[in-house]
């Protein structure tokens, strides 16, 4: 039975060896997850600041405000998103997606928000991903933001655009508000076709409801300006209520 005992001890120790490897694997994975969560929190916080910066825009300070926003956004990319890129490089970024997704979504929200105010168009996923390429070690497979996080970020973007539109209308920038309205409406419509086939669409479905609320808030604001402007066309003989309306405060105050 001494051979038997030897075998037992061997089994025992091989089991222990295997489990000590498993323990190391789990420890490393958790440590990495923790680092990713922290980087993601930093990305979130600083992206939010960029969004607030863009909201400071008015027709008088548009350029300087956006210039600062651009710098801040670049800082987020270089200081914080780069940490995510480094952690997730070469490994499977789907595995830790839950740990960094909130940060990336907020980053998408900030980048597309800034870009819309700057160029009036949607910043594409490819464009964002190409800005991440220089952050990667060229020998490894680069981190690329996935469609799902991009779409989730886009859904939040519409909330910020709604806030912007309300502010722009008070600011007399009716045309810009209408542009936002069209843009958000298009995004909403395009998303209705894409959302049902997303990997896990439950989050996105509640976001769609919020988005429809945002769309309607903008539409109601545009309606209200339009109706108000229309009231005096007969009196004043103009045919373009909006130009009349926007022009008014500048002239009379």
């Amino acid at each position, binding site marked *: 039975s001494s051979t038997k005992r030897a075998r037992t001890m061997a089994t025992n120790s091989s089991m222990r060896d295997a489990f000590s490897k498993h323990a190391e694997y789990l420890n490393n994975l958790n440590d990495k997850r923790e680092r990713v969560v922290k980087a993601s929190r930093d990305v979130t916080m600083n992206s939010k600041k960029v969004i*607030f910066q863009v909201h400071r825009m*008015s027709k008088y300070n548009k350029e300087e405000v956006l210039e600062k926003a651009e710098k801040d956004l670049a800082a987020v990319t270089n200081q914080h998103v780069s940490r995510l890129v480094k952690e997730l490089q070469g490994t499977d970024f789907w595995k830790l997606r839950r740990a960094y997704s909130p940060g990336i979504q907020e980053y998408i929200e900030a980048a597309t928000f800034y870009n819309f105010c700057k160029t009036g168009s949607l910043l594409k996923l490819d464009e964002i991903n190409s800005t991440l390429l220089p952050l990667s070690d060229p020998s490894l497979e680069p981190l690329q933001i996935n469609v799902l996080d991009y779409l989730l970020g886009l859904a939040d973007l519409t909330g910020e655009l709604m*806030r912007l539109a309300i*502010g722009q209308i008070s600011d*007399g920038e009716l045309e810009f508000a209408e542009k936002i309205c069209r843009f958000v409406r298009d995004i909403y419509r395009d998303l209705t076709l894409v959302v049902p086939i997303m990997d896990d669409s439950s989050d996105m479905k509640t976001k769609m409801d919020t988005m429809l609320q945002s769309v309607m808030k903008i539409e109601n*604001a545009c309606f209200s300006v339009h109706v*108000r402007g229309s*009231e005096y066309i007969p009196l004043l003989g103009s045919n373009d209520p909006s130009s009349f*309306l926007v022009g008014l*405060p500048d002239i009379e105050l």
Partner: protein
Amino acid sequence: HSLEKQFEDFRLQLEESGGLRDRIRTVVSEIESTTRLMHASLLLVHQSRPTPELLEKAKSYVNVFNDHYKQLAEVLGECSGQYYRYHGDWRSETQTVVSLIVFMHWLETGNLLMHAEAEEKLGLNSSEFGLDIEDYLIGVCFMSNELPRYVVNQVTAGDYDCPRKVLKFLTELHAAFRMLNLRNDFLRKKFDGMKYDLRRVEEVYYDVKIRGLAPNGEPVEDQGAQGPP
């Protein structure tokens, strides 16, 4: 048992803190009831009662608040450094107080009551028992919510210059708030609401202007300066 002794200590500490909380609550409920009275008297502004009378009445309540907050400070003085432990017990009521005195001050001077001024008015002492800045800011937002209603009722009562003045004030206030970086919290939500107040006031100003009802006062804003035209 040492275990029992420790828990006995805890029980005493927690009972003490419970007692403190009861005393806070008593003061707070008095604050709340003064708030209701002051609110009721300020509400008459919507029915176009003459402002000086109203303000006279309203001011009398400010002294009452002074007393209440002195009591609160005394209670809290017994447990230094625990201001924020009990903060939740008075913050909502204090926000309402702020909104009322800021509104009153604006009716009187046309200016925003600053944080330090608000503390002074309520007899608060920043170093010991001050006014939390977020509470102040939320109170200011609450006050902004009252302005559209005020403007509408003033115009109905025939004061056609009011929209211009409110619009000017609100535009500046909104610009100032935009300097803040907020979290997704209650203050953020309230600040978002301010945009709608601004828009409503702008609409009323527009209604008055387009009908040539507005008197020729100073314009809302100098050309070029930040803020709405």
